[in-house]
């Protein structure tokens, strides 16, 4: 599904990712954990195609060169990034945004467009599972949403767009325990043999609801240790420095 080899990323003369290797097979859930400044957000940004980074190394996604694609091409190919800080877009209705995104992706995939009526029903069905008020559809994208509402809106998009690889960037940050449960259960429900997930996080909180197949420790721009879900507990108990040294 995703194969990353010797990936470096820099901004100006500052190297942030420094020879990162990572393999995620279909259906697996991986967690990348690390302290602030380790390069977690850079990893998600580079994978999703944000401008501003100079990269070397290779990233192969579904057999093709991921780094050669535009952000929208990556999305159409099945990559999804749940943002750490979802962007507020005044004046653009949430429903219009979701509907446009879904049809843009379906168009590239050769699937027929979904009409407005069918889309509304579909969106409401997904929202009900995430305990979201349908009123969120008629508001502007993320505008005035609380932190928890924004994160739920991300998971709603994840659920509607049905990606092959979902990257969750600090999705657990800023959530209270109830919101964390809803989001965590929402993610767990999306587990599928054909869908992989990469959970990028500072805290292991979300991992109480979503059990990862592999846990990686990211430090100074590279993976320094890999283990199973027990590693997350260990990190919480002894901290990144000590865990990385073992």
């Amino acid at each position, binding site marked *: 599904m995703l194969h990353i080899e010797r990936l470096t990323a820099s901004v100006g003369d500052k190297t942030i990712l420094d020879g990162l290797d990572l393999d995620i097979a279909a259906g697996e859930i991986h967690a990348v954990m690390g302290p602030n400044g380790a390069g977690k957000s850079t990893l998600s940004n580079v994978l*999703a*195609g*944000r*401008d501003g980074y100079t990269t070397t190394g290779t990233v192969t996604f579904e057999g093709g060169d991921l780094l050669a694609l*535009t*952000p*929208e091409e*990556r*999305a*159409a190919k099945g990559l*999804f*990034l749940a*943002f750490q800080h*979802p*962007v*507020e*877009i*005044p*004046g*653009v209705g949430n429903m*219009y*945004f979701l509907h*446009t*995104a*879904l049809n*843009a*992706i379906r168009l*590239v995939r050769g699937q027929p467009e979904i009409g407005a009526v069918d889309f509304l029903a579909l969106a409401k069905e997904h929202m009900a599972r995430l305990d979201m008020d349908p009123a969120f559809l008629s508001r*502007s*994208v993320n505008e005035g949403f609380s932190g928890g509402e924004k994160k739920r809106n991300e998971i709603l*998009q994840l659920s509607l*767009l049905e990606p092959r690889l979902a990257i969750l960037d600090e999705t657990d940050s800023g959530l209270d325990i109830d919101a964390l449960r809803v989001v965590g259960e929402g993610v767990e429900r999306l587990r599928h043999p054909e869908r992989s997930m990469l959970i990028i996080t500072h805290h292991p909180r979300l991992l109480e609801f979503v059990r990862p197949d592999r846990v990686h420790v990211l430090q100074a721009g590279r993976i320094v240790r890999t283990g199973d879900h027990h590693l997350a507990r260990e990190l919480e108990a002894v901290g990144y420095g000590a865990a990385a040294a073992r």
Partner: protein
Amino acid sequence: MTATPAGLLDRLVPPSPPSPRAERGRDWLAAHGLPTTRDEAWRYTPVDDIVGALEAAAPAPASTSQVSRSVVDALAGDHGGPRLVFVNGVFEPRASDAGGAVDGLWLGNRDGMRARPPSPRAAEDQPADGFQALNWAAGRDVAAVLVEPGAQLDQPVHVVHIAAPGEDTTANHPRTVVLAGPGSRVHLIESYVGLPGPSVTNASTRIVAGAGSTVTHHRVQDEAAAAIHVGRTAIDQGARSTLRATSIMTGGHIARSALAIGFDGTDACADIDGLYLPLGHQHHDNVVTVDHRASHCASTQRFTGIVDDHGRGSFSGHVLVRHGTTGTDAHQSNRNLVLAPTAQADTRPWLEILADDVRCTHGATVGRLDDDALFYLRSRGIPLEQGRAMLVAGFAAEIIDAITPATLRDRVAAAFAAGRGG
């Protein structure tokens, strides 16, 4: 002000002014002339180009066979209510639909107005500037909308001013008068549109909102690509009156819209929206003045500019709170989106507060498209150009979504999308 170019009066103004107002306009213009960019209120407007076009212009022909109902439908739309159509400033009954008798509403032109008792204040009016003086002196007709006290009009009244130039530049001077009686409710749509060709439209609109009246006014300037437009709208509000005004500018080559609102009685309020979209080499200027000369009135200005290519847009917003008034609530915002390095947006808030008990805010922004928002849309599979279009439309949505009726809102949205290549 400068001396009026020699010959301009002779060429554009009829030798014997048809009314005392026309005579006042001619005398005022002869004495004071047209404005220049040295005049503060005209500093952003290429007024020399406008005067140059006027100097070369001939009076527009009074009648033209080019304007049928279907042409008016295509240019300005049909918004359900009565429609008065003026071509080159002269009433065109064949394309109009005065709508039979609507209770409490009188629609007409100069001929009909002559049969009515003159308004007492009309005799004292003085022009605000040389263009308005020229409008009075050279104008040949007037669109009149008179609403009786207490009348509640459900359907919008649509006044359409069409510039129908020939091969050479022609000048026309449409005038509109709206008197909303005390306690009445009226929705006026003013459309300024045109057939292709070089024209100069010099428009003047006067609205008097009686005590306790509710007036909605949508002014849409969507003239042809070669058109020059100078418009002035003066709205006087009585006590407890409510105004919702919107000014949309999509068309023309050089266009300036001045809006002067004055509170003559207490406890009145005005919500004033504006949207301007200069593209190509278009130039759109907005000059808004809100005169809080009565106490306990509230005004809110929301103007949004989207400038692209070599377009230039400006907003000058003057709030005047007079000495001796109290309880004024005045707000102003001007947001600009600059989409090309060659485009330019100017914003000039001017708050002149001569009273103590005032709540007054203003804000102005000039920015580019939000890269983070664009990346967010693209990361969801929305292609770059479509994402840009969504963000630009979103920037204008606050103003467009508030437009009524839906037929006009859809029309403005379509003109917006067409201009943006959407």
